[in-house]
């Protein structure tokens, strides 16, 4: 029989501590939609997405009601479009429009996979897709894009870093009217994963089944509330508390994923063991770090506290579900986390500290607003730095920076909703242009002699 304390704990976690399922993401393969005629290919893409995901939102809402837990987003990821569009030999923007229309038809708020994988070089279709990203993101509402520029096995494609520095700027420039939002829908990865349910970097890898369901959980507020009960505990006890609470959070993700997969008749993919913040009060990863004992996130000790948090979340979550994958870890998107926003505004949290933090957590420099006059080569160098951390540490890293066109340090960009608002953070003024313009490939790192 259920214990009264357990029942009330679950209800408190959901009602007061912002426990939710962040996303149910349906991955759909578009490999069978390839056609040299772009109109035919786009029609196949639209039909495949609307066919497979017809009931996704309805089933998501049903589960939400039944288990009494909010499922914030229902989303779709597809095969990287560069693979699908290569045969058409023209601009792939119509694919973005077909994805956008399909997303609207089935009622999902974002669709990911306008992507290219170029860690070791560009193949047919890759450059066309990359060059079309600014137009695709400016002319659609729900499409998200990602480009993988490096991996531990392949090294870093510095030519791709350079191109992406320019593309990120163009995405912001073409969407100035909507607070440069285009750049918020573009992620540049190193070691990207094929089963990530989180936007904007989700795509459906070619090694995946035709269709599957991935789930991303959330719950920073729950972790913080649990830690609040142990003000004098040692750090080993803190790790145990986080593990236990991460177990409970992840169990709900597993339940929702399995139930959704049964009802949709689609295989269950993975649960992403994540702590994903929102700008809402009480849903912040930065506040967990502060609860552990930092006066403000970003100060000395932040990297160590985050490493402990990230590791404990994974250890607790691993036992809670049958399949784990995605990005799995604590996210630190600046604009989407009330504590991070405060720390950045106060000047405690700098881009250098964020970079150090990304070495020990999931995923990377995320939702960071940079000055509007930032050179493309500087953004390329930020991408290369972040990719190097991922490459050397065999982990996923990513860059999602938003150049605030026409704005400077001291101002901010505000998107509202889950994307939040971010202060413009200062960058170094010295130019990395010569380094970036050398081009070529940074060789893959040694896998032994690790020091």
């Amino acid at each position, binding site marked *: *029989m*259920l*214990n*009264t304390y*357990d*029942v*009330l*704990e*679950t*209800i408190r976690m959901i*009602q007061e501590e912002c426990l939710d399922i962040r996303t149910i993401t349906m991955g759909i393969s578009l490999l069978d939609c390839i056609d040299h005629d772009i109109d035919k290919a786009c029609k196949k893409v639209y039909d495949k997405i609307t066919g497979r995901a017809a009931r996704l939102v309805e089933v998501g809402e*049903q589960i939400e*009601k*039944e*288990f*009494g*837990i909010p499922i914030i987003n229902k989303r779709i990821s597809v095969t990287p479009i560069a693979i699908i569009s290569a045969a058409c030999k023209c601009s792939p923007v119509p694919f973005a429009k077909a994805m956008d229309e399909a997303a609207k038809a089935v009622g999902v708020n974002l669709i990911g996979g306008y992507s290219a994988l170029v860690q070791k070089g560009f193949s047919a279709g890759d450059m066309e897709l990359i060059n079309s990203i600014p137009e695709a993101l400016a002319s659609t509402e729900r499409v998200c894009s990602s480009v993988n520029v490096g991996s531990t096995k392949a090294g870093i494609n510095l030519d791709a870093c350079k191109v992406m520095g320019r593309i990120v700027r163009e995405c912001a420039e073409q969407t100035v009217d909507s607070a440069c939002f285009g750049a918020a829908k573009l992620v540049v990865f190193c070691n990207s994963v094929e089963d990530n349910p989180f936007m904007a970097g989700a795509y459906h890898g070619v090694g995946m089944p035709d269709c599957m369901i991935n789930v991303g959980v959330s719950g920073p507020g729950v972790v913080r509330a649990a830690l609040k009960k142990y003000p004098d505990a040692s750090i080993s006890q803190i790790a145990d508390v986080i593990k236990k609470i991460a177990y*409970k959070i992840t*169990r*709900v993700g*597993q*339940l929702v994923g399995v139930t959704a997969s049964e009802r949709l008749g689609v295989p269950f993919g993975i649960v992403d063991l994540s702590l994903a913040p929102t700008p809402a009060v009480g849903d912040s990863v930065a506040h967990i770090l502060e609860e552990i004992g930092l006066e403000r996130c970003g100060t000395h000790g932040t990297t160590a506290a985050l490493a402990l948090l990230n590791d404990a979340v994974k250890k607790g979550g691993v*036992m809670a579900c049958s399949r784990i994958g995605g990005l799995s870890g604590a996210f630190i998107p600046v604009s989407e986390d009330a504590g991070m926003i405060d720390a950045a505004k106060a000047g405690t949290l700098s881009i250098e500290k964020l970079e150090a933090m990304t070495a020990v957590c999931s995923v990377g420099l995320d939702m960071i607003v940079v000055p509007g006059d930032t050179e493309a080569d500087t953004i390329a160098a930020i991408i290369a730095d972040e990719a190097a951390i991922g490459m050397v540490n065999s982990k996923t890293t990513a860059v999602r920076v938003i150049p605030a066109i026409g704005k400077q340090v001291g101002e901010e960009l505000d998107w509202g909703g889950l994307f939040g608002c971010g202060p413009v953070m200062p960058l170094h003024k010295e130019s990395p242009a010569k380094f970036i313009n050398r081009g070529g490939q940074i060789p893959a790192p040694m896998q032994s002699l690790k020091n």
Partner: protein
Amino acid sequence: MRAVVTVIGKDAVGILAKVSTKCAEHNANVIEVTQSVLQDMFAMIMLVDISKLDGDFASLADELTALGDSLGLKIHTMHEDIFNCMHHI
């Protein structure tokens, strides 16, 4: 299939009666009830069988929530699986 109905709020006469009447209207069979009143805070947890519901689960949940609102109480109706998965290995 079973659901857990939790009722939390200020104590008053007839809460149990009203909630169980609503369950009966939907043909949800009450299996177990635990209830306590601490000072004047009322907390009740009710386990109901929902395998023979008249209508769907969502309408039972919505009507119970509405009943709670009209009485100034918080009523949550959730499938028991969420509690089992979270608190049992």
